[in-house]
């Protein structure tokens, strides 16, 4: 149960960080969408926008690795913690390192009450959204019981359906109102089939799951809303791709009838994601530039945005900022992560110096002092700064856990056994902005 709680907290932190990092991308896509729709409507295919929103979705979901520790893996960290605390209970637990790591961290996490509150609210929000999804799905399914097959194997007709829709992610079925005219029937079926071919049912569903997770970010709601609009436009474009002009007119008239004609009088309040009919009609009747040119331009736009998303130079900075913000919540007692005080370059340079004093040390984990190694109040770091009269920016401490001994002036590792000893290396920054080792100690 405790591990589960920690898992929630870990996930929530990642989610918040991803959300923050995605803000600039969402804004950029919104601006780009406006520009394309305003000035380049005929030169860009409608399928571009859902692809761009797909990139946004990726960015929101893929965990970004930032603030990495110098060294090996967190299982090493776990072992360090166990040794350091000298807790007989944990010592007796076997080599289930991950479990130990989680258990150790719980006692630290428990003191971060501010963090816990956010996690609770976030979890409740996610669960609420998922329940809405589930309930909506069950309600829908019940209502479409009384449906009869049609000539199309994946289309069924139902008295109770007023507007056609698709249900199902893996086996999508189109449900049509039973009172469509024959003329309308085929056109609408083609539209729905276009949705299925484009896998829009999967896109909307996945998009909704992402929305569930990032519900606290209003920009994600905007993105989802625009995604729904853009999906309809892309679908219309695909459905009418092979139509001649009179067929396009018929299709557009059907769209209009269904929004403003007799059917409109029967409809209830506007649902989430109202799709503007005027925009859709314009897409249908649009006279596009040469098809080939349009496709090339569209593909180029997608590639360009994808590259920007991956290679965004601010990613590293933003990651640092996000971690600092998270750090504010994570360290109410004031022990700052060394990765917050120093840049990655500085950490690398100092580590390089440190391992030069230790044969084979490169292959083991050296960890800069942080809340796990320095304790809640970073006592060691503060003490060392006081002793050496140095500012926290000019002093760095690294720990490692392997057994070692001095041989001819350098530390040699005995990698056969895990150590009861720890190495602590203290470095100071000198006037030449280089890192110098001023102390190496072992302690048990």
């Amino acid at each position: 149960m405790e591990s589960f709680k920690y898992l929630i907290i870990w996930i929530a932190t990642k989610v918040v960080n991803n959300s923050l990092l995605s803000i600039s991308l969402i804004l950029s896509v919104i601006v780009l969408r406006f520009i394309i729709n305003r000035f380049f409507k005929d030169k860009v295919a409608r399928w571009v926008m859902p692809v761009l929103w797909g990139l946004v979705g990726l960015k929101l979901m893929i965990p970004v690795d930032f603030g990495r520790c110098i060294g090996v893996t967190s299982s090493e960290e776990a072992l360090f913690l166990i040794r350091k605390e000298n807790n007989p209970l944990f010592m007796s637990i076997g080599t289930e390192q991950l479990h130990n790591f989680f258990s150790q961290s719980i006692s630290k996490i428990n003191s971060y009450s501010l963090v816990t509150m956010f996690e609770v609210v976030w979890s409740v929000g996610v669960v609420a959204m998922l329940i809405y999804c589930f309930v909506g799905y069950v309600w829908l399914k019940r209502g479409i019981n009384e449906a009869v097959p049609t000539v199309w194997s994946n289309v069924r007709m139902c008295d109770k359906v007023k507007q056609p829709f698709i249900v199902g992610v893996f086996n999508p079925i189109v449900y049509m109102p039973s009172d469509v005219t024959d003329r309308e029937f085929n056109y609408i079926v083609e539209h729905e089939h276009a949705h299925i071919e484009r896998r829009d049912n999967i896109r909307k569903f996945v998009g909704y799951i992402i929305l569930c997770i990032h519900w606290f970010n209003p920009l994600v709601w905007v993105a989802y809303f625009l995604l729904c609009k853009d999906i309809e436009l892309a679908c219309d474009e695909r459905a009418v791709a092979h139509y001649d002009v009179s067929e396009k007119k018929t299709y557009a008239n059907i769209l209009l009838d269904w929004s403003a004609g007799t059917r409109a009088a029967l409809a209830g309040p506007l649902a989430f994601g109202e799709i503007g009919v005027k925009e859709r009609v314009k897409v249908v009747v649009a006279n596009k530039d040469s098809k080939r040119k349009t496709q090339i331009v569209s593909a180029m736009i997608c590639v360009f945005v994808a590259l920007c998303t991956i290679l965004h130079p601010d990613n590293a900075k933003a990651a640092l900022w996000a971690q600092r913000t998270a750090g504010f919540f994570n360290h109410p007692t004031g022990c700052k992560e060394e990765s917050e005080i120093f840049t990655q370059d500085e950490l690398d340079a100092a580590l390089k110096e440190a391992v030069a004093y230790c044969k084979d040390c490169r292959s083991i984990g050296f960890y800069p002092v942080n809340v796990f190694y320095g304790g809640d109040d970073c006592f060691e770091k503060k003490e060392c700064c006081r002793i050496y009269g140095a500012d926290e920016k000019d002093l760095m401490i690294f720990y490692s856990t392997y057994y070692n001994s001095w041989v001819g002036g350098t530390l040699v590792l005995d990698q056969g056994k895990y150590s009861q000893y720890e190495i602590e290396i203290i470095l100071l920054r000198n006037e030449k902005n280089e890192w110098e080792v001023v102390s190496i100690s072992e302690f048990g």
Partner: protein
Amino acid sequence: MPDIQMGLVESQFADIIWANEPIKTSELVKIAEADFTWKRTTTHTVIKRLCEKGLFVNNKGTVTSIISRDEFYSMQSRQFVENSFKGSLPAFIAAFTKAGGISAKEAEDIRKIIDSIEEE
């Protein structure tokens, strides 16, 4: 005669009863399962509803008609069924269009746009 409304699906089912009456409900269940892939409960629900509307009667498991098919169709034309989805579909469902909300003027404008495209 009271005005009886039936949607297309209901009328397809009613046609089955009219064509095969008197018919046991268990038979109806089998036919509906084969033709429509309906569950047993669904079939029973529809039978009950049609009986409540006064078209058929269920006598100890056998269904017969009160109003014959010809009588019914001479009475009225098909109309919309109540109880439909009132337009508030869940957000994650891909739907055709969200009806309503257009003024007459807007509709006029859009109609003009459609009419204006020319034959190529």
